[in-house]
Each structure stands twice: as C-alpha cells, then as structure tokens.
C-alpha cells in the first residue's frame, strides 16, 4: 500500500472497500509503472551493481565484483557525515513547518480568488537561479554586508558579526530554499477544511490555540506530513547551497558522494555510499510505516 506520506496510514473511510484494479486501472497506472521501471528501478539497479565493482585510473567501471567499497563505507566518518546531514534536514523541516504552517493556513483561508496569486507569490522567488539567490544572501549576511551595516548604523552592534559560513547560514540557506515545499502541500490540506467544523470548535468555546491543536492541525495532518516529506527527504542530499553559505567545512553526504563521483573518479565507492543512503532511508520509511499501522 502506498501512503508513506500519510500520518494515519491510508484507511479509506468506512464503507469504501478498495477494489481490485480493473484492466482500465492497470492501463492508467501503466505509464507510472513503466516510468518507475525504466528510470528509477533500472538506474538504481545499475548503481547497486556498480557499487560492487572497481574502476580504472580514468574512472571507468571494471566489472570485478567484491565488497571492498562497502568495507570502506562502513566507517564512522561516513556515518557521522550522514547523521549530520540528517540532523540539518530535520532542523530545516521543523523550522519550515513553524514558518510555513501559519502562512499556508492564511493562504488556504484567504478569499478564493486571492489564493492562486498568493501561491504564485510564494513560488516566484525561486524562478531565479539558485546561484544569484545564494549570492544575494551572501551579500546580506557577510561581514561587510547589508545586515551588519544596518545593525551597526542603528547602534545595535558595535562590531560586525560573522553570520556567514556558519551552521546558522547553512540552516538559513536550506530553510529559505525549501520553505515553499512545505507551504504548498499544507495549503492543499487547509484549503479543503470544512468551515463549519472550525466554526463549531469556536462556538463550543475553544480559543484559537485549542481550535488549532484539537481540530485544525489534526485535520490537516496529511498536508503537514506531505510537506515534511518534501522538505526533509530532498534536503538530506542537498549540498550546493549549503556549501556556498556554510563555507564547506562541514561536509554533507551529498557533497561527499558528489566528490567521490567527480574529482575522486571513484564511481563504485560513490555508488556504495549512495546505496547505503538509500537502504538507510528505505528502512526508516518502512519502520515508520509499520509503526503507524500498529497504531491504527
């Protein structure tokens, strides 16, 4: 069953047993199946194969199968780097959720004709190249940058503070770039909220805090879960922006794999690290899923 993005498993409402797929259903699903097979399963299988192989001095694959890449990959360094990447991704997800939820709620409850335009406004800043966005941030955060000179001229600071090239800058870069991917899915859940339900909560004397915690948030959980997924998962392997803003002294798993693939000319080892990342990730998904099933 699909539905790893859902918090409550994927039970259909009562009285709606899921059917066995008809021929038409298979036909409609077939493009997705073919796509997955050709462009997801085949490349992943290839990578897994490569991860057991060796390479020559130019980086071409030599098909001598052995486990040496995995022996090498089971080292505390790589695990530490992976854990750190996961930690940053987690932090990013939490902050995006805090920043994104009220925004998504506001857009979802805005008058209908404003919703489209507000959504557009959330997304449009990202229709620029990530390089110029990131260099703009560098301009703002640097020691002789806008924020420091603003703080100094307003008397709040005496000396410029180093904000760039720090864990703070890494998280800022990630949050900035992934925030829309939290707002949009939550919006889709908020948008279908039944007004009557919220009114009822208020009518029964619930304050905004109680209405939110008891009614609104539980009802929008699928959107929150989807948003968390769309922010958390891709930000684990993200590295271009984090390296630019963080200064590159904390290696991330995406960067390490990239470097083994390119300047290391060691695709088999890079593939082994990538395969391990996939395995860890799949196990984690599987576990959360079974956990939810048990809870249900």
């Amino acid at each position: 069953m699909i539905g790893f993005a859902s918090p409550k498993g994927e039970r259909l409402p009562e009285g709606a047993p899921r059917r066995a797929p008809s021929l038409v259903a298979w036909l409609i699903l077939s493009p997705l199946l073919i796509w997955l097979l050709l462009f997801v399963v085949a490349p992943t299988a290839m990578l897994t194969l490569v991860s057991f192989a060796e390479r020559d001095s130019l980086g071409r694959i030599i098909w001598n199968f052995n486990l040496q890449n995995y022996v090498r990959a089971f080292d505390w360094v790589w695990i530490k780097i992976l854990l750190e990447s996961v930690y940053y991704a987690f932090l990013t997800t939490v902050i995006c959720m805090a920043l994104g939820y009220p925004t998504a709620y506001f857009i979802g409850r805005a008058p209908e004709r404003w919703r489209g335009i507000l959504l557009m406004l959330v997304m449009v800043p990202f229709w620029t190249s990530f390089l110029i966005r990131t260099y703009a941030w560098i301009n703002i955060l640097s020691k002789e940058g806008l924020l420091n000179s603003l703080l100094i001229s307003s008397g709040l600071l005496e000396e410029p503070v180093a904000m760039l090239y720090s864990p703070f800058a890494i998280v800022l870069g990630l949050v900035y770039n992934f925030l829309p991917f939290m707002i949009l899915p939550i919006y889709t859940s908020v948008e279908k909220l039944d007004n009557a339900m919220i009114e009822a909560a208020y009518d029964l004397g619930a304050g905004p805090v109680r209405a939110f915690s008891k009614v609104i948030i539980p009802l929008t959980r699928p959107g929150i879960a989807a948003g968390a997924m769309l922010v958390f998962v891709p930000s684990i392997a993200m590295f271009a922006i984090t390296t630019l803003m963080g200064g590159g002294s904390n290696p991330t798993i995406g960067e390490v794999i990239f470097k083994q693939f390119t300047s290391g000319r060691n695709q088999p080892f890079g593939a082994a690290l990538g395969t391990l990342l996939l395995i860890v990730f799949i196990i984690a998904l599987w576990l959360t899923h079974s956990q939810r099933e048990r809870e249900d």
Partner: protein
Amino acid sequence: MIRIDSLFCGAWTIAVMAFLYIPIVLLMVFSFNSSRLNLSWEGFTTKWYEALLTNRVLLTAFQNSLIVASATTLLSTLLGTLGAWMLYRYRFPFQRLLGLLIFIPMVMPEVLMGVSLLVLFVQFLNIPLGFTTMIIAHTTFCFPFVLVAVQARLQGLDPSQEEAAMDLGATPLQSFWKITLPFLMPAIVSGALMSFTLSLDEYIVSVFTTGSQSQTLPLKVYGMAKVGLNPQLNALSSIFIAATVAVALAGHFIGKKKIL
C-alpha cells in the same frame, strides 16, 4: 468578524513573504548597479538590461529552460496525479513497494541520478542527449512531488460521490473528470508549481543529461561566479519575476474566473 488567529496568520504571512523576497529585492536593485562584481553599489545604470537584450546565449538558455521546465511540469503532473489517484482508488499488488520506489528519486543524490541516467540513455536506450533526455531526467525527480501533494489531498476524499456517479452509469474516467479532478485541483496546481520550480533550477542532473542544443540557464550560469556573476542575470531574473507577477495580478483583476 476578524479573529485573532487570522490576524496573527496574516501578519505571519507578511513576515514570511518579506523573508522570501529579501534576496529578490536585492538582486533587482543590483540589476541597476554599474559594478560588475555585485558586491557594493557603485552607481545607477541600465546597461545590463541593454546588454541582455542582445545576449543571444543567455536568452536562448532561458528559452531552453522554459521549454524543459514546461514539458517536465506537464509530464510530472500527469504521472503524479494519475499515479496517486490509481494507487488510492485500487489495491494493486506490491503497492507498498511502489510507494517506496516513488521516494527513491527524491532521496537519491543528484549526481547518482545524473550519471546513472546518462549511462542508461547513452549505452542502453540509445537516445541522443538533448531535450528528450533532459526532460525525462527532470520528470523523474519532479513527479514524486506532485504525487505526494496529490496523495495528501486524497486523504479522506469521500468516495461516495465518485461511487454515486459510477452507480449512475459514469465510467471511472468520467467520474474522475467530473468529481475527483476538480477536488484535486489545488494539489495538482501545487505539484505543478513545485515541478516547474525544481526543473527550472536543476544543475547537476542537467549537466549529465544535456546535449549541446539544450543548454539551460543553470548550465550557462554555473561557472559565472568565477568572474563575478554577470549582472545581466539579475536583469533577466528581475524581468521574469516582474512579468510573472504582473501577469498573475492582471489575471486576478481582469478575469473573475477562479483558477483554483
């Protein structure tokens, strides 16, 4: 009646929008800066806009980006929406496995995806590198975003309406078209926006799957930091953002037709 929560959420939204637009305002200001290095203000100029108009390379790359992103958006939206709907509606064998596979392109580091697709295209499928390969590659990492968004919206969809339509003789496809699709629209639009954005800005996967005729903007821009990012890029982004916002606002105020 305006409640505290909508006041709070409104103020919050304004703050978040400000956060999102800080760098954008800055790059718009710098598109009029006469310094090439983009670091400090040295005087007003419109020369970057003038230069941009004759910069065939940047404009072509931008056009290519739009082509790839539009095609990717279309394909991902189709794949993601139909996939999510089918997987919700029916119980397929190996459904749990399918659910896992969908997440693989999201977690797979870009370089792994880029190189493995390159090998697949060149050595197994024999597709020459170019728009086709690039669109396939982009769609592969974009459609899961649509699928996840649509799936979230489907949670708790009342199947009785669809059932009722089918009881009245509508085919599943008709009931999908008339009932499910309108209901899913906000999620589909969200997914489409996300796909478009992801595709527009993708660099690493593009490097490995592009040909010389399908050079997109990120590919042209990537090395520019070496000599200072070309301020023409600021100009290009400013025009694009301003135009998009203008079109959206015009659509909002002229057409009463709701988009979502």
